[in-house]
């Protein structure tokens, strides 16, 4: 691309651009920047996620700055943007694709996400198994509540899970 960002002298990453366009061409091409996604974005008010800006930056190929920033991890995946987009495109899918690239490139990933992965590998669950505290400040675990014990995932689950993670291109 004969394009350069004069403030940072960054150039579009042509390889990543092509890769992401190949998979998400329709999402990126048809966006016409009405900014409805940002107007309704749950994460914008607290965390300043600007979906429509991400769409155009990605389309132009300024992808590196996105995958190294924390902003793509603030999406709450509420999917309002997808539901309401007048062009039927999905900023959500673009953001997820950017996250996948970030993982692939071992860029900065928020710790909570890494924790979640190890949690799944260990327990098979996205959430940790919590204890319940009663009004009398009594701590009860599953055993005390007479709930069946949760088994640890099998080795097959772990290998399959890791395989999926690695095999996922975007």
């Amino acid at each position, binding site marked *: *691309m*004969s*394009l*350069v*960002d*004069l*403030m940072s002298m960054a150039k579009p990453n042509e390889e990543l651009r092509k890769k992401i*366009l190949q998979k998400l*061409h*329709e999402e990126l*091409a*048809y*966006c*016409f*920047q009405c900014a409805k996604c940002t107007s309704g974005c749950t994460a914008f008010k607290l965390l300043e996620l600007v979906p*429509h*800006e991400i769409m*155009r*930056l990605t*389309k*132009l190929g*300024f992808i590196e700055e996105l995958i190294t920033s924390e902003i793509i991890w603030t999406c709450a995946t509420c999917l309002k943007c997808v539901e309401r987009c007048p*062009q039927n495109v999905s900023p959500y899918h673009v953001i997820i694709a950017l996250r996948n690239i970030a993982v692939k490139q071992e860029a900065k990933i928020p710790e909570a996400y890494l924790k979640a992965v190890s949690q799944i590998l260990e327990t098979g669950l996205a959430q940790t198994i919590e204890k319940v505290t009663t009004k009398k400040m009594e701590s009860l675990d599953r055993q005390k509540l007479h709930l069946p014990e949760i088994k640890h995932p099998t080795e097959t689950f772990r290998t399959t899970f890791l395989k999926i993670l690695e095999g996922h291109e975007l």
Partner: protein
Amino acid sequence: MPNIGVYVCHCGLNIAGTVDVERVVEYAKNLPDVIVAKHYKYICSEPGQRMIQEDIQAYGLERVVIAACSPRMHEETFRKTVAEAGLNPYLLEVVNLREHCSWAHSDQPEKATEKAKELVRMGVARARLLEPLEKRVISVEKKVLVVGGGIAGIEASLDLANAGFKVYLVEKAPSIGGRMAQLDKTFPTLDCSACILTPKMVDVAKHPNIKLLTNAEVTNVSGFVGNYEVTVLKKPRYVDEDKCVGCGLCTEVCPVEIPDKFNEGLSQTHAISIYSPHAVPKVAIINPEHCLRLKYGKEVCGKCLKTCEAKAINFEQQPENIQLKVGAIILAVGADVFDAAKIPELGYGRFKNVISNIQFERISDASGPTGGKILCPETGKPPRSIVFIQCVGSRDKRFHEYCCRVGCMISLKQAILAREKLGGDVEIYICYNDIRAFGKGYEEFYRRARDLNINFLAGIPSEIRSAPDGSLCVTVYEKVVNKLLEIHADLVVLSCGIVPGKDFNKISETFHVSRSSDGFLLEAHPKLRPLETSTAGIFLAGACQGPKDIPDSVAHASGAAAKVIELLSKGEFEIEPLKAIVNPDFCSGCGICESICPFDAIEMKAETVNGEKLVAEVIEVKCQGCGTCASACPTHAIKMQHYTNEQILAQVHAALIAKQEMVK
């Protein structure tokens, strides 16, 4: 004294929201001769009109005063209303309570109500003195002059000719076709422009009802609606139109090279040439400014003369004045493309690879200078990156405030053509302000462009510079991503807007048509009479009235043709009786009226009844009823019908007199 009825319209809340209509009605009831006064929500509605008609019968009304919107809006409507009830339509007075009162004083309702009362009082005073008048009938010439042979002029001419009218189509260029003939493809269907235009051009040339006059200009127009006399100057081609077969051999031997106007200066043609590949008529023309023989005398050059087998070349041809009588005129004179050289920061004219959108059309056109291959003018190579810049000369207070209405669609189309012709690897950027895709199928076309990996950048570059590597350096602040971006482009296309023609001043004088503030020719009413000018019998078609794309131009032209048919089909038509009348006994023959009449409607005639003297005579059909003569006449010999001195003075008195005195 006559029985007068007064009707005050609410116009929804347009009037009643400011003016207390009930108080105005109460006031009107007490004015002398007023025997009924009412208000109504919408007098122009069917029940509103019926109310007045019933009152005319019930109260024996002899004059009707309607206080409503501007008479320009509904005077005709209300004249019909009273006429249907048996009253002469000129016994109606319309008082403008909307434009002249409620809209102007919406912040002062109390004072507006007082003003409304006074306006009504004035209207009643004039109404009392109104006289019944009859419309006049004049015969019309069933021939039409169409000026301009672009798509609008072609469409109007064919419609009229097919309806059986004789049409004179005058075109100043050597061929008809206009701007559309220069285009490659048309949005939003990507039809080939020549494929849909050329057959129509041929139809024009072949139509028995159309007389085509190319290389010609209208130099004088006199007369009036239904009976115009037109002088057309047919400039010499120096080639006999009947003999020339359009073989083009003469062009090949001509030693003089000049820039090709049809190709927007991107290629060279010769002093003798055929205007365009699809020219109609396909006849050569000699440019007298460049031809060696026409410049330096009889013995010089003459190569074309020797080559032409048809013996068509005639250096003796003279300009010819042609007199035409027509009933109506359609101006389809088109418009120009903005000259980007006026914006020095864009480098147009300085950098060969900065081109206008019309030049891009020529480059992309199969019959253009590159045979349809998109190549950079400077290098002759296909561009690897193209930048389109929108709103050049339009939406720019320094040049033209309006939106050109076609720039966005043209750039989308050209970007699509570039993608199709140059393949997927070429980088295409469109720097835009807003993308305006408003017509039928246009938004879908915009989506199609987005599908083709065209990069849209929200922001307009401030300048174009040349980079050391020979490319063009375009810097633009992209307002979506908030970045200052720099693009190195091989080709920059400026989306130049549609601007009023250079000769519009002359046209406006010749045809007595006004121009709007944007410079285009002015229609009689922007919404309700978009096809007519304020001069009766002269109509507008196409982009001369304002920027238009092809579908709009064609629709406008067919509309203008239909208006002409409406006007001329009966062979005669009625005109307003608002004209000046001379009392010969009072006329001193001074001739002041003749000298100031803007319509040449007064002639001084010798009269011998009471000894030899000059007497002013009004040419009825020419008189537009402006009243200039009546106010200038030193002996009050001229009476302006429907606006007599007595009527106007009564209004003035009513305006000045103390309020109480008028009330009975």
